[in-house]
């Protein structure tokens, strides 16, 4: 081993209590940072997923229809008052080639076509206003993991079959295998379409559970008189928080109305941003405290080790070698602390998941810690350890050996 490392390790070992104290402080600091970061990230993703429910990361809609005045608006002699057009249900032009192109886009994980429209679900005297979603079950499941949200039955939407929200089923008093009717603008109440319930879903929000009716894509096309068309393409992208950028790019590419989830849930986004800023502030303060802690212990150590430093200098250790001895001590303390801190954080997370559960006993939400959180904690700790050691190390290097020995 090299001189600097030998001496740095030995000084730390000699410091015993001091060394363990500061490694302990660093450990807790790093653990808090990793734990909070992991928890906030996981809770944000979880919260977004719950709030979004069956809202996609990005939705592609047909462009809005606009009324075109026959007269030029520039003509000063006429004041045209243009009434906005009522938006009827329309299909996205050429959606199949567009979907194929989106399938190949590396930013996009999954694409699901949707025909959605309003209807009444009727059984006997009871009727409820619902939103009928015609979907391709395989593609739809890739985005919304709907099979995980099944409360009963299976997610099967062959012709004549429907999967409905659990609350809607209760409202209508029906269960698996029972039949109900859907009335749409096209069918009218005279000739309703009959469906058999194959599954009940719990989407996590009462209102959604009261309105959800899933049928096959073709069924919905027939219900809403949109043969071969779709009213919406839903996208799942690789990075949830990248939705705005991807949406902007797609809008420019396709000329369609592309909406990212952030624009639909602005307030949620504001709350998430506030949480992120809070998390950053906490991390910054923890880092500052840890840096000050390491620095103060090393400052004391330099004072305690004045004579040793003088002896080492007399024996031919250069100023920069002495400086490196103390920089190394900072780095070693920080690295050890960060490794222990990562372990501690991992155990906290395990305990957290074990202790804090949903009423039904399932974990509150999955906390997956990216490897990069640990890696950046370790790398960051070394950088900040060196930073913390910089001042004491320079102080040690500048000691006058003749005076230091005389102490």
């Amino acid at each position, binding site marked *: 081993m090299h001189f600097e490392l030998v001496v740095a390790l030995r*000084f730390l070992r000699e410091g015993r209590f001091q060394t363990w104290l500061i490694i302990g402080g660093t450990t807790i600091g790093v653990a808090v940072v990793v734990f909070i970061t992991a928890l906030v990230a996981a809770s944000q993703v979880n919260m977004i997923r719950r709030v979004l429910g069956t809202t996609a990361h990005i939705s592609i809609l047909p462009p809005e229809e606009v009324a075109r005045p026959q007269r030029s608006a520039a003509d000063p002699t006429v004041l045209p008052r243009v009434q906005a057009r009522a938006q009827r249900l329309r299909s996205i032009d050429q959606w199949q080639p567009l979907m194929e192109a989106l399938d190949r886009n590396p930013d996009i994980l999954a694409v699901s076509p949707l025909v959605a429209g309003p209807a009444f679900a009727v059984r006997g005297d009871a009727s409820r206003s619902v939103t009928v979603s015609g979907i391709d079950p395989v593609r739809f499941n890739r985005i919304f993991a709907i099979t995980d949200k099944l409360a009963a039955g299976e997610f099967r939407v062959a012709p004549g079959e429907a999967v409905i929200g659990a609350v809607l089923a209760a409202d209508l008093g029906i269960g698996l295998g029972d039949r109900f009717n859907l009335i749409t603008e096209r069918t009218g109440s005279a000739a309703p379409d009959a469906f058999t319930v194959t599954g009940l879903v719990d989407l996590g929000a009462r209102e959604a559970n009261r309105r959800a009716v899933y049928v096959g894509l073709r069924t919905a096309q027939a219900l809403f008189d949109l043969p071969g068309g779709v009213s919406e393409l839903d996208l799942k992208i690789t990075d949830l928080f990248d939705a705005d950028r991807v949406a902007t790019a797609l809008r420019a590419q396709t000329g369609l109305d592309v909406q990212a989830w952030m624009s639909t849930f602005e307030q949620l986004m504001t709350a998430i941003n506030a949480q992120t800023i809070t998390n950053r502030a906490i991390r910054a303060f923890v880092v500052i405290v840890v840096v000050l802690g390491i620095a103060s212990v090393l400052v004391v150590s330099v004072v305690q080790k004045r004579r*040793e430093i003088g*002896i080492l200098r*007399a*024996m*031919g250790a250069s100023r920069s070698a002495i400086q490196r001895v103390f920089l190394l001590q900072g780095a070693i303390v920080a690295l050890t602390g960060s490794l222990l801190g990562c372990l501690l954080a991992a155990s906290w997370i395990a305990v957290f998941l074990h202790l804090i559960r949903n009423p039904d006993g399932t974990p509150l939400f999955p906390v997956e810690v990216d490897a990069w959180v640990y890696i950046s904690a370790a790398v960051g700790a070394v950088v900040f350890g060196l930073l913390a050691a910089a001042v004491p190390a320079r102080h040690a290097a500048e000691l006058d050996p003749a005076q230091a*020995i005389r102490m």
Partner: protein
Amino acid sequence: MPVPLIELSGVCKSYGVGTEVETEVLHGIDLTIAPGEFLALIGPSGSGKTTLLNLIGLLEPPTAGSYRFEGRETAQLGDGELTRLRAVGLGFVFQFHHLLPAFTATENVLMPGLIALGPVTAARREAAREVLRAVGLGDRLDYLPGKLSGGQQQRVAIARALSLAPPLVLADEPTGNLDTHTTDDIFALLRKFNAERGTAFLVVTHDPRLARRCDRIVELVDGRITRDAPNPSSADAATPD
């Protein structure tokens, strides 16, 4: 005439230069040491002995005058070269408790080599043990300094000073806090290495009994050399008691 080991001419040292309390501690020192010499530097407290030793030991620079080490003017050496010279050209034996307390006897002896030559090799480790055996500490190789008596600590310090076989060893009151018997042992050890290896020694002492056993006595009073003469009575000093 061979190149002297060290050569000081007109060396002055002042502290607090440029302030109101500027004091000159050494006034125009001329001193030459040849390879293999055994000198005593004597003088009353405050005469500047330690300052002169620090100067020769390259721990602080002179404020005026010339200091040549093996013919090289030290004022022209950079910090790196001075550090290097301190590592391989000089050995230090301080008054007391100047071992590194966190390192064992062997590790203390290995330290100058670790600094100057890099990671310890098996050969250097064996050589360090050999020197420790030569100073009579063969059974204390892995003791921490705190577990050693004053005399034993000073032997470790001597072994350390000699570990890189420097041409000159500077010893500042090497027996200052030791009893008479131990003092004799330590001093005999220095003479032994001087005779066997040809290492030059400069020993600062205020013990006239020790000074009489050196080959040459330099006396410093108030920052001036007042006496520099061979010591006729040192003929028997080479023989250990």
